[in-house]
């Protein structure tokens, strides 16, 4: 381990302070006993208890989870298919246009995506609710999945698929038995990305949600406009905790997988 110079220590401290002080304050005040968010009046789990009693928040959390699971699953299927065609189909007419259009939603302002979807749903007479949010989230998260999966497919050895065909697979079997299992880690991380994007989306959801289908971000946002309560701090702390556990688990397991692979390869030679 190297000792850091005073300059490096300072920049590191400043950077991390900038990133984490706001969240730290939020977490600390979620354990506040008093009702005021900015005045400390003793440690308590009171607001976590209150949160569990709050039907509206729980309802919104349930809707959010449903939407995230459904939309990320559909987006993963569609995004993987699109990536496969873009990488594998070779040069067909209009390929550049298509691949450009797949990635366009990445840079499209969310307000515009949300508005255009809203207009579409009104035009075709689709009542706004869980279904419309799922459709909207699928639309914008699909391109993220496509980016992740196609970056894996580019380095995928094409002869593996040819070998599968050679050994008697049809095109679909070759995909299902060889390509898909190998690119699975990328597909899963695409799914996870879509899932997180859907979880914390506020703008598009507020355009496409109906009265019966408020998602958690919308609920928090509207509650905050009436004043921040320690209840919201508690909710946010839980969310931060979940995300942290998720990220740490993912990075640990991938680290272990890499270490195992290196060990195996050392054993082979």
């Amino acid at each position, binding site marked *: 381990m190297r000792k850091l110079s005073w300059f490096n220590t300072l920049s590191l401290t400043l950077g991390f302070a900038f990133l984490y002080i706001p969240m730290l304050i939020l977490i600390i005040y979620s354990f506040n006993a008093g009702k005021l968010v900015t005045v400390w009046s003793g440690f308590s789990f009171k607001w976590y208890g209150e949160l569990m009693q709050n039907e509206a928040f729980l309802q919104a959390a349930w809707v959010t989870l449903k939407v995230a699971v459904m939309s990320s699953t559909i987006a993963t299927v569609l995004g993987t298919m699109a990536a496969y065609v873009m990488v594998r189909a070779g040069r067909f007419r209009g390929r550049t246009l298509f691949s450009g259009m797949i990635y366009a939603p990445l840079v499209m302002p969310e307000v515009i995506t949300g508005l255009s979807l809203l207009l579409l749903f009104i035009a075709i007479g689709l009542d706004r609710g869980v279904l419309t949010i799922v459709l909207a989230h699928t639309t914008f998260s699909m391109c993220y999945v496509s980016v992740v999966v196609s970056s894996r497919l580019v380095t995928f050895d094409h002869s593996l698929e040819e070998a599968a065909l050679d050994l008697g697979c049809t095109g679909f079997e070759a995909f299902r038995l060889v390509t898909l299992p190998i690119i699975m880690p990328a597909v899963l991380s695409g799914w996870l990305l879509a899932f997180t994007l859907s979880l914390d989306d506020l703008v598009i959801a507020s355009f496409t949600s109906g009265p019966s289908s408020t998602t958690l971000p919308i609920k928090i946002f509207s509650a905050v406009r009436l004043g921040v309560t320690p209840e919201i701090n508690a909710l946010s702390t839980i969310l931060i905790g979940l995300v942290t556990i998720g990220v740490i688990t993912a990075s640990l397991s991938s680290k272990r997988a890499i270490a195992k692979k290196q060990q*195996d390869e050392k054993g082979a030679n």
Partner: protein
Amino acid sequence: MSDAATALAPVFAPWNDPAAEPIIQFKNVTKRYGDFTAIDNQTIDIYPQEFFALLGPSGCGKTTMMRMLGGFETVTEGTITIDGQDMSAVPPNKRAVNMMFQSYALFPHLSVAENIAFGLKRDKMPKDQVEARVEEMLSLVQLNKFAARKPHQISGGQRQRVALARSLAKAPKLLLLDEPLGALDKKLRQDTQFELMDIQEQTGTTFVIVTHDQEEAMTVASRIAVMDHGKIIQVDTPAKIYEEPGSVYVADFIGDVNLIEGNVTKSGDDHATISWASGQQDLIGIAHDEIPTGTRATLAVRPEKVNISTERPEGMTNVIHGKVHDIAYLGNMSTYVIETPSGQLIKAQAANTRRIARRAITWEQEVWLSFTDTAGVVLTS
């Protein structure tokens, strides 16, 4: 082939037997990618149980020939038949052909045994039969101990053998091998070449191998097709290709060769004479076809067929006089580079049957090279 014919022909040479039925026929096959012609109107027959090598530099079209057999490339013009059946509409998974890929293309998520079983399962073979066949293939390539390992847990040479076992598991009529030994180091490659030949004999499968390594082709193949720029230049047995190349290109591509250019002064009776430098006597080599007098021609002679001596040899047809320019000591033999008075460099090889200290020939010494009238061939193309 009748039994009588087999008995009369102990040497395996179905290409000389007019009754033999080829397993593969390329008939006027052309392959184009846009404006680029990869294969230019080629016709060739390959016979059952042959070990057929497609040899050439990279970009000569050898891989395209093989991929068309496997069904991974379509034919632009002409037809390819396997066992008399036109293959143009048959996809790779419906062909009784298997391929061993250059990168081996082992499925990384499956174990060695599962890799070998992959093709058998696609054929809906009963489970116990699959197991028996996998066991049989593992024994063939001596990998029984590694059945449960994943491809990344075994060495490169072992991976190569798994790839071979997997492609042979379905007992194909024809096995295609794309640079099968390219990724192995030299020592391992030589051992594996003999293993490949053994396996080919044991299974009786027709092998078509693509390689750019002429030594490899010479070692394993029953016949070699030397290719260049989408065309097959010569198809022959390794010995014929080496001893009697049909063109300067083939002579130069296979092994080491001295190319001596000159004008034909006499031709006929399976030989031709060329006059090549003033002050040197004319040289005689094999020429099956008569060459008109005065034609520019090249005598190709292998260095190991050229003798070197310190005194003018008596009774040899071809004698060249020169000075030793360079000596390369290779252990078992030495290569002498001789410079003639006209500046041409000619190589001669001699086995080092004596210790180096007792060697008679040294740098700048006057020497005579000699070879027989059947040692070289006179080529006009």
